[in-house]
């Protein structure tokens, strides 16, 4: 029998038994669709957590005052006052430090802010212009703290969107308005773009003022709460950590790294922890996906086997009327291939659509991994074909009358 005849016979057999065809296809669609949706959900979560962390600033190193070694509480090493503005300027200009691109000296503290009748307790961050670069901060309206603001010790403030909402109401334009911090009047000169986050670490609930103003006028200190550094490239993170570490040790007249009165954290450390967490999550989801693939596979297998009695009789009849074994196997194989491929393609489309809808609903990234598509498709197609082919093979080995009488 010609291939075209076999294909047309397969198609008419599939359209004749719409319920059987529909159920088998449904099994394949669900199997493939759910795996694709689950895996892309996992990957979207992982990607959005990484991108959230990267939005804190890429290639970021943070120098904190005080020892990282909790046991060493002697002399200045336990103190919180060991980093100064001069340390920051020195790092920037030191010829032996080649891996650092930008330096951002910072002093931050929570304090009460008042405007008219409203007030809020928020984080005030004394910053220099480099802050926005190092922390990838974007300005929605107005401008960030400028160099002349720092030099002139201006009483200007840049607000996070949460602060704007708390003090002026949602969507208000606070530019040119004044706020009072610690009894002093500041003019609002800019608003930052939202970075997301909530609760204590809310990156939108921050007020930025010039570092000089913060140190001298608001808090009366001459030290820093941290120095943020941006390495030139991701590969130079460790180099930068070492260069800055030894430079500061020398500047602070310390010879033993164990006595360091500061510590340096890398963004990478946080990223590593976070990606370890998210990869656990992805493994978990992959497990769920594997189970749903298994369930889908069993569904496909089931419907293929459930209809087998009727099909064995059909095979007996076809053989009785002169069909050769290879013709029967070819027809059933063709049916299984048509079934699983059409079901597979619908499953892929549905899986991708589901991932898209989930990403829209949750605001996460829309990622579809080709690997998950191929895996889900391959597994379902193999199951569909094997369980379409195997009973047909068994039945075509029977005497026609045995197959016709099968119950």
């Amino acid at each position: 029998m010609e291939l075209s005849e076999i294909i047309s016979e397969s198609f008419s057999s599939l359209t004749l038994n719409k319920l059987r065809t529909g159920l088998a296809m449904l099994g394949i669609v669900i199997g493939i669709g759910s795996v694709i949706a689950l895996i892309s959900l996992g990957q979207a979560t992982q990607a959005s957590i990484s991108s959230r962390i990267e939005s804190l600033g890429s290639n970021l190193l943070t120098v904190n005052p005080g020892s990282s070694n909790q046991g060493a509480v002697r002399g200045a090493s336990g103190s919180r006052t060991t980093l100064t503005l001069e340390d920051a300027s020195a790092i920037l200009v030191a010829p032996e430090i080649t891996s650092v691109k930008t330096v951002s000296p910072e002093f931050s503290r929570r304090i009460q802010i008042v405007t008219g009748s409203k007030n809020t307790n928020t984080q005030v961050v004394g910053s220099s212009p480099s802050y926005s670069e190092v922390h990838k901060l974007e300005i929605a309206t107005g401008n960030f703290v400028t160099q002349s603001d720092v030099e002139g010790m201006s009483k200007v403030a840049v607000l996070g969107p949460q602060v704007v909402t708390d003090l002026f109401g949602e969507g208000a334009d606070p530019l040119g308005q004044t706020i009072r911090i610690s009894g002093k009047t500041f003019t609002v000169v800019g608003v930052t773009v939202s970075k997301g986050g909530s609760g204590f670490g809310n990156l939108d609930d921050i007020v930025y003022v010039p570092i000089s103003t913060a140190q001298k006028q608001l808090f009366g200190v001459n030290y820093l709460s941290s120095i943020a550094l941006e390495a030139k490239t991701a590969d130079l993170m460790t180099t930068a950590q070492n260069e800055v570490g030894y430079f500061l040790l020398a500047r602070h007249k310390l010879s033993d790294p164990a006595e360091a009165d500061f510590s340096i954290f890398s963004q990478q450390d946080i990223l590593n922890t976070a990606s370890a967490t998210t990869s656990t999550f992805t493994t978990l989801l992959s497990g769920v996906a594997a189970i749903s693939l298994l369930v889908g596979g069993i569904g496909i297998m089931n419907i293929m086997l459930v209809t087998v009695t009727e099909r064995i009789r059909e095979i007996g009849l076809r053989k009785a009327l002169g069909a050769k074994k290879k013709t029967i196997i070819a027809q059933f194989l063709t049916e299984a291939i048509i079934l699983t491929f059409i079901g597979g393609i619908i499953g892929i489309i549905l899986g991708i659509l589901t991932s898209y809808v989930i990403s829209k609903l949750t605001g996460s990234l829309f990622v579809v991994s080709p690997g998950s598509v191929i895996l889900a498709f391959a597994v379902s197609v193999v199951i569909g074909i094997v369980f379409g082919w195997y009973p047909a093979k068994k039945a075509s080995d029977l005497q026609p009358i045995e197959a016709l009488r099968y119950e």
Partner: protein
Amino acid sequence: MNTPIIIVEHLSKVYKSDLFETVALADISFEVKKGEFLAIMGPSGSGKSTLMHILGGLDQPSSGKYILDGKNVESLSDDDLADIRNRKIGFVFQAFNLLPRTTTLKNVMLPMTYAGIPREKREAIAQKYLEMVGLGDRLSHTTNQISGGQQQRVAIARALSLDPAIILADEPTGNIASAQAEEIMEIFKDINEKGHTIIMITHEPDIASHAKRIITMKDGKIVNDVQNNKEIRYQHKH
């Protein structure tokens, strides 16, 4: 005309189950010559269908020899046997065995599909035979939309469609009203006159009387084998 197309020697068929054995055919020997019209009669369970299935190449005997048109069936390959079932034998099943939910036209076309006859030709032939059995107006009815008698006639049209040398019919008129049964017998006699060999199972003496030879079976054995000359008289009686 006188060469045997079917030679059966010491043919037995035993069905074995866990608890007991059923001897469906017990050491049967007979010959059928080309162009014969043979009726097989006998009580239910006497092994008629079992014999017919073996003659049609649908089942294998437990022992004995079956020579079909000079070939020992046992020695034939699976594919050769499929070709014989397709081309040489037209089988009318007691239970019709049509493809469910499929049109009568497609059912009749099916053996021709396996014979490699082109689609248009298949359709024309199928239509011709369906008209012949009185179903010219039921071509696109599916098998569940027609009566048992009509299904049986579709099965007959299907058996005739490839113009096979041998027609094997297991109670072909079992579900058909007697007037129509006579029509079917006319068709059988017609093709028999053209040289086709016909073997037909029936339990109705009226129907058997159309045959030229009648074999009677009982308990898996042939108990009677006679030439029949009463045909004309029966026809006049009805």
